Each structure stands twice: as C-alpha cells, then as structure tokens.
C-alpha cells in the first residue's frame, strides 16, 4: 500500500552535522510553504488517478523540525491528507519532533488527530555532545520530553548519533539503557557522517577537533546492537532496532521497493517504477521547477534490491534478481561470502541475508555482490 511522506523544512537552528533541506525561517515563509504543500496534496490524484493510490497505510511527517508547526498549521496539513487519501485501519502515522519543541498541548493534539508514533531527535544525552552537534536541548530536556510523550504514546522512537565529539564507549551504552528503560520501543542509531557544506565538515577540515576513531565508532555500534538484542530489540535494518511489532512500517517501504509519495521540499516519491524528487531549493519548489525524475531500469532495480536488501533483516531474493536478469549465484564473491558466513542463506537458498556482524562493512559487501 502507498505511504505518504510530508517534509517540513523548518528549524529553530541548523544542526552542525545536518545537510538536509532545512533552514531557519519566519512565520510568513512557513505559511507560504504550507499553502503550497496543501496545494500539492490536493493535486496529487489529478496527476495519479490510479485507484491504488487512494488508500494509504503510513504517514510520516519529517523534517527539519515538524514539531515547530503550530497546532493550526498541522491541522490543515493533516486535514488535506485525510481529504485526499483513505487511511487503512491498521495505519502508522509518525511525526518527528525535537525534545525542546514539544509540550503537553501539542502531544495531546497529535494524539487527537491520529498520530500514533513519535520519532524524537534525542541524538545524545550528554550535554557537551549535544552542544557540539548544535542541538538546542540538553540531556535532561530530552528525558523529560520522553517521559511526557510516554503519557500519550506507546510507540516512541529515538534517534541517537554515534561518533559525536567526546563519545565515551561505556557511557554510550548507559544512555541507550536509560532510553529503553523509559519506554522507548525503537532506536535509530546513526553513525555521524561528515557531509559536505556542514559546520562539522568545516571544523574537522580546519583540524579544530578530532572526532572519535572509526574503530571506536564501530565498537560502540556493535555494543549497542548487542545490548539492544539482549533487551528484546531486534535489528531490522543496519541502523534500526525495535521491539517486535514496533518497526517503522513507513521506513520499511523505502527498503522493500514499495510505493510512496513525498510532498514538500526535496521530498521523494516512488510511483509506478519512477523515482521523483521535488526541488531542494524553495524558490524552485514554489515554481514547480527543479524536479528530478528517473525511471528505474532493470539494472537499477537489481542494484537497489541488493543495496537495500543487504541493509535489512529481510535480505535479498535470488528469484527476484533472476527475474530482473541477474543470476547472483554466478557472482565471484558470493560463494566465498557464504562459506565465511558473511552471507546467510535461507528458504531453500532463495533468500540471502547479510550477517549482522558485518553490517559495519556493508558497503564493501554490497559493491562486491552487484552485477559487473
């Protein structure tokens, strides 16, 4: 079934590591943006009249900082979605929020309008690390937000970063423990990436700071995975851990080749074998310019299936690849990987999975298994 993504590019302050389409802006700009967003949602079925695009089972409001939206603004957006799409009974509706921009009133409203999952940008519980990352909250604030959210929501996810300045291996696991003992059901643990054009890139380049070593980051990652596994969280994607039943249905769509539609700045859709992205510059977005679209060829479908499948617990499907024209059994690396238990086979060998021990080097394995 179709999933809907809505992008809210506004922030109170740009994070030091962030390379997404997000920025600080005024109220007038926000209003203009929401108007255009709603216009696009209302227009969708003119462009895609197919019946299958009427029904949806996931909504994801991401950013930026969607929790910056006023209740009124959010109400209008949700109303537009509900007017244009039929929501499946067993739907998932996520909103991303920052610890410092939610309050009881907003949480009540979220619950009331059907949101049933929160993704909180905790990133760290260490005040110095948060400061370095350019976040506006501290550890206490994050814990308070989780506690408050717990009153209204059962399905709470937290984002945490690995590799921030001053990372301590033991304290890291302690903070994960603190999160899950406060009712968090889902953890997304991301490695800090130094993206182009970010503040972090600049200060690392100028050698003003020395970030933790790759080896240490991987150790923290491995320990996090181990600790979460001991606490009934299973790893369903390289960076995502959940208690059974609390996986992000919406995000799974990205990894399993299901269809989704994205509204808003730089939002991506995957519809009818085409990947389409909206402009990542506001001026172009308003003019409906700067769109990018590509029809995926069999070669690209094969590449994406391998790349995404090996990042997930579900793995890749040999028969699917064969159908698209790639006999992966002829790959010169595969046998070696299977012998070394880097790749695990299941279901009469039709499913190939990456052994989670090797998630940290998944790129190497993926590039090895791609068709020549």
């Amino acid at each position, binding site marked *: 079934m179709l999933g809907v993504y809505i992008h809210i590019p506004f922030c109170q302050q740009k994070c030091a590591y962030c390379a997404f389409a997000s920025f600080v802006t005024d109220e007038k700009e926000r209003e203009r943006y929401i108007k255009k967003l709603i216009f696009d949602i209302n227009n969708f079925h003119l462009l895609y009249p197919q019946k299958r695009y009427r029904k949806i089972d996931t909504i994801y409001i991401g950013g930026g900082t969607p929790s910056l939206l006023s209740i009124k603004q959010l109400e209008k957006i949700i109303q537009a979605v509900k007017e244009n799409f039929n929501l499946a009974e067993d739907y998932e509706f996520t909103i991303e929020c920052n610890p410092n921009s939610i309050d009881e009133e907003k949480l009540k409203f979220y619950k009331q309008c059907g949101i049933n999952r929160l993704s909180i940008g905790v990133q760290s519980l260490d005040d110095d690390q948060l400061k370095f990352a350019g976040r506006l909250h501290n550890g206490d604030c994050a814990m308070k937000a989780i506690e408050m959210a717990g009153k209204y929501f059962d399905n709470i996810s937290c984002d945490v970063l690995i590799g921030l300045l001053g990372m301590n291996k033991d304290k890291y696991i302690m903070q994960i423990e603190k999160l899950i003992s406060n009712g968090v059901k889902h953890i997304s643990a991301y490695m800090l*990436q130094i993206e182009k054009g970010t503040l972090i890139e600049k200060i690392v380049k100028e050698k003003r700071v020395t970030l933790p070593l790759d*080896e240490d980051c991987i150790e923290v990652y491995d320990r996090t995975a181990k600790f979460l596994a001991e606490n009934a969280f299973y790893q369903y994607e390289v*960076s995502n851990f959940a208690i059974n039943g609390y996986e992000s249905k919406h995000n799974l769509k990205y990894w399993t080749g299901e269809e989704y539609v*994205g509204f808003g700045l*730089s939002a991506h859709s995957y519809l009818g074998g085409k990947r389409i992205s909206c402009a990542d510059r506001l001026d172009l977005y308003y003019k409906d310019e700067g769109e990018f679209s590509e029809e995926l060829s069999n070669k690209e479908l094969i590449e994406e299936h391998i*790349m995404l499948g090996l990042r997930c617990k579900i793995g890749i499907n040999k028969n699917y690849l064969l159908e698209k024209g790639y006999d992966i059994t002829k790959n010169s690396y595969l046998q070696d990987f299977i012998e070394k238990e880097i790749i695990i086979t299941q279901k009469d060998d039709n499913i190939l999975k990456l052994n989670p021990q090797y998630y940290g080097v998944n*790129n190497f394995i993926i590039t090895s298994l*791609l068709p020549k």
Partner: protein
Amino acid sequence: MERLKKVRNFCIVAHIDHGKSTLADRLIEKTGTLEKRDMQEQLLDSMDLEREKGITIKLTPTRMNYSFEGEDYILNLIDTPGHVDFTYEVSRSLAACEGAILIVDASQGVEAQTLANAYLAIDNNLEILPVINKIDLPSARPEEVKKEIEDVVGVPAMHAPCISAKDGTNIDDVLQMIVKEFPCPKGDDNKPLKCLIFDSYYDNFKGAICLIRVFDGEVRVGDKIKMMQTGKIYDVTEVGVFVPFAKSTEVLSSGDVGYLACSIKTISDVAVGDTVTSAINPTAQPLSGYKKVQPVVFCGIFPVDGAKYNELKESLEKLKLNDASLEFQPEVSQALGYGFRCGFLGLLHLEIITERLEREFNLDIITTAPSVFYHVYKTDGDMLELSNPSSLPSAVEIEYIEEPIVKASIFAPPQYVGAIMELCQEKRGIYKDLSYIDENRVKISYVLPLGEIIYDFFDSLKSRTKGYASFDYEIAGYERSELVKVDILLNGERCDALSIIVHKDKAYTRGRALTEKLKKIIPRQLFEVPIQAAIGGKIIARETISAMRKDVLAKCYGGDITRKRKLLEKQKEGKKRMRKIGSVEIPSEAFMSILKLDGEE
C-alpha cells in the same frame, strides 16, 4: 652519376639534450622547407610523449633543398634518438646515411652517448662532422670542447662549426659543411632495385608504410616489389618523400630517402632491416641490414579488465609496427590472467610503451616488475632461458644461475666519484677503471649486473650527482651469480605476479621493503591479511593488514536511495581496478610498486 652528386644523406647524433632536435628544426627553417609560421617547436618530435619528455624516440626523415655556390642540393636528414635505450634505432638510421653530425654541448662537452654514438657512426663508416652547440650559454667553452672531441672521440674538430641552434647562430656553416664534408651517395639507377627498410609506421588508410633508403635502382607506383627476408610480393601504391610531411612523388631513385606504401595489411610483414627489391628483376644479394638488437628488460603487461585482452594484443601489434625492438608473447598469470610478456630495450623504452598504451590506446594496464633474462642451469643438465620469476624451477632443480652483465661508462665531474662508486658498489658493481678526460671530468668504468641497473639506477645516479653524470652501457655477456626467487604470499597464497629474482644478499631487504610497501598499498579487507615474503618455504618478512572495520553506515531513506545507488556504482567501478588473489583484493598499482622500492630502502 651527376644527380647523386647533389644528394647528401646524413643523420644527427648526440648525447641526450645536446640539441639534436633543435638543430634539425633550424636546418628545416633555414632551407625554407617550412615557413617559420608553420614551425612547431621541435618539429620532428611528433609524438606528444617525445615533446613532453624532451626526447626523440622515433626516426624521422626530412628532405630539404639547399643552394650552395649556384648548385641545388637535396639534403636528407634523419633525426635519431639520443637516449641510451635507443642506441639500436640510431644504428638503423646510420645504415641509411653517408654522414653524421655529432653535436656536442659547448658547456657539457663529451658525454657518455656522445662517445657511444660517435663510435657507432665510425663503425658504420660514416663521415663525422662535429658541431659545437649552445655557444650562447655563459658557461660555453667551445675551444676546450673541440680539444676534448679530438682527444676522447678521436676525430678532427678544430674546424667544427660553433653554433647556437636555439638562437639560429651559424646554421649556414653547418649546411655548407654538410655539402662540403659529407660524401654523396653511391648507387646505380640501372641496377636492380635494392633498398633498406630502416623504419616503418602504420597509416590507417595506406597500411604499413616503409621508410626506405634506395641504394640501387628505382621504384615507382605500380612496380612489383619483393621483401627479401619475408619473401612477400606487393604492388607499390605510393612512393614519396618527407618535406617533412609525407608528399608523394613519381619515383624514388638510388641515393634517395623516402617512403613506400604497398597496402601491407599485416603488421608482421614489414621487417625493419629487410631489403626491398624488384619482384621481376631482383637483386642477387640483399643488404647486410644490421644486427637485430635483443630486448634486455622484460615485464608482464596485463589488461586491468580481462575482457580487453584482444584490444591489448592489437595495440601492441600496432606499436610494434613503429617499434621493431618491442617484443611480446602471450603469458598467463594465476593472479592477473591473460596478458603478454614484453621485451624492451631499457626502462625508458618500457615506460614509453606503457604510457603509449594508456594514452594513445586508452587501455588500463597492469605492469609487473621489470626483469632481465636469466640462464638457469638445471641439475639434469638442461639450460633454461627465462625472464619471468614465476617460471623459475624449484631450488633443488637448479645447479646455478647466470645473469646478464653490462660494461658501464659513467662520465661525471671528479667531485662525484665517491658518490658514483658508492652507488655502483651498492648495485653489486665491479670497479674496472677511472680516467680523467680533462680536469673537470672523469670516466668511470664498472661491470654491473643488468638486473641491478634496471631498478632505478638512472634516478639514483642523477640524484647523487645533481644531474651531472651521464651513463652508457653495453651488454657484456653472462656471469654466474647467487640468485634466489623471493615470493610474496597474500593470506598464505603465493601471488605469482609479485615474485622477484634477486641476489641472495639482497633478498632479505627487498622482501621486507616489498611487504612494507604492499601493506601501504593494499586496502583493508574483511579479514586480517598477512603479507609474507618467502624464499622457498622460508618466510623472511611479514606484515599484517588489519581487518576493515567500517565502510560507511549512512542513512538510507527515500531521498538517499538514488544518491546512494550512484555512489555504489562508482565504488563498483573502482573495484574493477582491483585484482582478486584468493580472497584478497589488490589494486593494480601494487604490481608496479616493486619498481620504486630501492629509493625507500
């Protein structure tokens, strides 16, 4: 014959950088063969590589018209390479001439190849005309250099023109001397055709073109000709001269230098050094040609992409057409697959060929460490000749091994004698002689193993003498030596393409340097990879590449998928430059790394 009295065939020989190509340019300009505006700096060096490296590789003939004392002369100039690797090409052009201009730099004086090339010319019975170049330099000492030429080379030089090819000073003197000093060619138009193929090149439209010197007879379009060595018969489709661009003419007669095209499709049908004669009225006796020089440096060349084997083969065949000294034959390596074992005149020659394969033919290639030809005497009485370390039999089967040695002459200012002797000693050299040419220069003679000088000897010599030393060598047979094969094991598996043959005293240092170097070059793998150097079953050095721990764990949501897929496609391309040895991936550069070891020892 009256006509022949107006023809002069000559070449220019010199030590590298003494100004051959510049003088050739001035002669062309002065005789009005080309307008100044059409001149390109160093006109005859037509290959980009030649111009970049400032060296001449190919022979390039040019026909010039010159009037002297009311008579019109035809001057045929053949430019020649100056580097020691290409002595063979020099000897080929000498066979087509009656005279040689010997250029000597007015400040540097006689150098190693001045002497070597002068002797070659004398051996070929050429008249030698010394020319002192670069008199515009403040350090020029033309009178001393003249004396040096007389003392060291042994040819009269007091009347040698003193010129500056760069500024165009006294070029007329040179032209007049060419006419006055050099003998005219001898030959008879009425005798059966007899010409020497002194070079060849490939033209996409006309096929293989032969560069010829006609000794007797005439050749015109439509003639039936015969290659005496190969026995093949062809119809001549075009004859012509170089002015300096190819220009077709009606006929080439005795004494002429020019080209001949006859739709030769198969590259191997042109044997440089062969005699061309008439198929209908052949000459009885072919020209003696000249002795074929054997390649001395060998290496394996493999396509990075195994599927490009045929492309590599065709490219080598095309290069071979213009370069008779290049040799190659198919080779199979466990590590590198199908490729070629190639023979070269020296390291510069090797470098030029590999660069041309990459630039002109757009090929990605892997080159293995250069090696020489060894004579391996086995316990069963057999003798093997081999250059590929991986073909060496096991130690128990070997009685002893002989390696090629060279007689080397090094010219340098006296203050560098110590440094040079130290270098030669390091390279297992045996001191022979030291003599003073004058107070500023000595000639040092050593006997050295060829296998040692192909490893960065030139570079070390240059750096240790601040560029003042010059070097020449000739092959001087084979000598018994204590040689061993050092194998490289990656993750316990022997990699044939990384094996080297070295003297036993150097095996340990080389082995260690090699493992250290490979550790730097080979990226981390999924597992820890031991790199070992071994002689037979004995490990002499070991390094370890620790396992890869992190290879990007980026987020991958809706917006990231296309971007990430493209990134992976790029990384996959990078993988194509890798070779898999067992389960270890090695970048292609690793196979060449052995080349650069000595500098780091």
